[in-house]
């Protein structure tokens, strides 16, 4: 692998190449999320959630997609069911989120055990941090659910997953990672790119659909 002198130097200081790659890829993924918000109009749960889920998917590799999507989906599903059950108890916000988190944790444990029992060892060998990341997405989900309803929350969750999948496709593409390590300075380009995105006042792609009836007027 041909590293750039910068990369050579950093790795020479005992920083693992993997760590360096991830740190350099984070701005790229964050820029992707801001592009999706400003130009495409896909909101997701802010910028943190899609970025972190992207890396969680990466951490699930080699079965990133299969397990990542399954776990993300089950977290959201369990979050919805729990809310439905808890509704009648009229709990305050934080206790309600805490209960939801507990239920999801137990369910995850159950899923891992189930995976082990059916000899899907890939699932059980997953490291704990990506799993925790997925679980904490629940708080975002419950917050939106309370404010805007389940429908809006599910849509935002799906959008988050969509952005994460695009991000995952990008950062799990070996040629791209190699390029970043060979030319680490290119990551700095995300700054001017974000300045442009931050000044972008054009219609978002989704707004063309939202306002189609107005656009069709003579």
């Amino acid at each position, binding site marked *: 692998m041909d590293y750039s002198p910068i990369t050579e130097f950093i790795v020479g200081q005992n920083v693992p190449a993997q760590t360096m790659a991830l740190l350099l890829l984070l701005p790229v993924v964050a820029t992707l999320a801001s592009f999706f918000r*400003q130009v495409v*109009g896909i909101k997701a749960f802010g910028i943190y959630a899609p970025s972190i889920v992207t890396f969680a998917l990466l951490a699930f590799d080699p079965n990133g997609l299969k397990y990542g999507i399954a776990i993300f989906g089950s977290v959201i599903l369990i979050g919805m069911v729990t809310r439905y059950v808890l509704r009648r108890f*009229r709990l*305050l*916000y*934080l206790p309600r989120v805490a209960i939801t988190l507990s239920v999801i944790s137990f369910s995850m444990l159950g899923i891992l055990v189930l995976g082990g029992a059916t000899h899907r060892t890939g699932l059980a060998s997953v490291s704990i941090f990506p799993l925790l990341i997925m679980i904490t997405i629940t708080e975002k989900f419950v*917050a939106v659910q*309370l*404010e*805007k309803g389940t429908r809006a929350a599910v849509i935002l969750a799906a959008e988050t997953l969509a952005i994460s999948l695009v991000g995952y496709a990008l950062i799990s593409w070996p040629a791209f990672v190699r390029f970043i390590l060979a030319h680490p300075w290119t990551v700095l380009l995300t700054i001017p790119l974000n300045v442009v995105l931050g*000044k*972008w*006042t*054009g*219609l*978002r792609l989704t*707004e*063309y659909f*939202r*306002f*189609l*009836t*107005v*656009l*069709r*007027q*003579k």
Partner: protein
Amino acid sequence: MFELLRNSRELLGMNARNLDYIRPLNKRSGREFADNKLRAKRLLRKNGLPVPGLIARIRTHAELEDFDWSSLPGSFALKPNRGFGGEGILIVYGRKRGRNDAWVKASGAVVTVEDLRTHIRNILDGSFSLTNTPDIAFFEERLKLLKLFKPYAYKGIPDIRVIVFNRVPVMAMLRLPTRESDGKANLQQGAIGTGIDLATGTTTSAVVGKSHLIDYVPGTRLALSGIRIPYWNEILRIAVESQSVSGLGFLGADIAIDRDRGPVLLELNARPGLSIQIANLTGLKGRLDRVKGLKVKTTERGILLGKNLFGGEIEEEIEELSGKRVIGSVEKVRLFGKDGKEITVEAKIDTGADSTSVDTELARKLGFRDAIALFENRMGDRDVLNDLSKREREVLFSGIPDLADTAQIKSSHGTSYRPMFRIDLSIDQVIIPAKVSAIDRTGLEYPVIIGRKSLRKFLVDVSK
């Protein structure tokens, strides 16, 4: 496709709204003003603007424990002080029969003191506030539905959203609560939004939900267009003045009409939604661009500007339906005379007159000087010619150049004749060929009267 692109430049998107309008125009203090409903209420009232009455407020959990629930009236609205998008608002319409501690919602669901307590706890904990910070809950008087709106609104109270920019009302929408929106006048929650013609306060097109166009109130044959909103000028005045009080440069004022009190200002929005563009089937950006940079000194001036710039949709619609143009009782008319002579004058549109007549002096200027001189000459000083037959008249006035005909004018002392010429009129950009008589109109207000024969292509709106 080309049209789509052209229209898209008129539309205000989320990016442009935030970056070009909210960020520079709605400073922190203004946003704070709009977000803190209780404070806004107090200041607006101080400035003479009508706001709904405050029944009680609950600031802390201790106050909640001590609250006297029997002090609440039969109907009220419970709101979070810093709520947004209509979230966290609970409205009850009356006490549950035979109970002092339970009320009924629009949906028929029962709300007990215990429900209220939980709801208020959630408000105090900030579940509905913009930043999830602790909040204040308050009870507000519920407005009474105007009779006119009764058939259109499901349970709740319709309200009128007016977008004000630079002291000019730029767009407005009537929001009608539906069964889906649970009696709330909030488009995101499924209410109906109808566009409003700013000049007249008459509804135009309507959408329900995100962008579904509808013509009638669901389940009825009640047209949603053509509703004439009462107190229209007053509503615009409240909207514009609330902008001055709030210090916001770009805002959405929500105004409801109470059966007894008339228009009441419900809420100010520092981040007004963009669906109003769908209800009006028009882009907001095009309108904002036209108002930008104007120096508007008074409320009256701003309202007038808004009406003139953005009104008249109804008129255009009538023009489209009838194929006729709508003109006022006085219009600027351009007269095309001989040899390319053109004169523009203010003319009176008179549906009581048969034909069009112009002042003699004006006719001279239009190139008929010689013809008029000859005509006067032949007339001599006879102004009574009733003993002439048609044949005799033709002989008398024959050979005068440009003379198209003669008009018989009957007066108390007999009949006289006036010369008639062929000219072209341009009324509201439509060219009408006309035979006009030249009559001395010195001392009268308008030098030209447009009669019925020249008005076949027009409808006259006397209020214009």
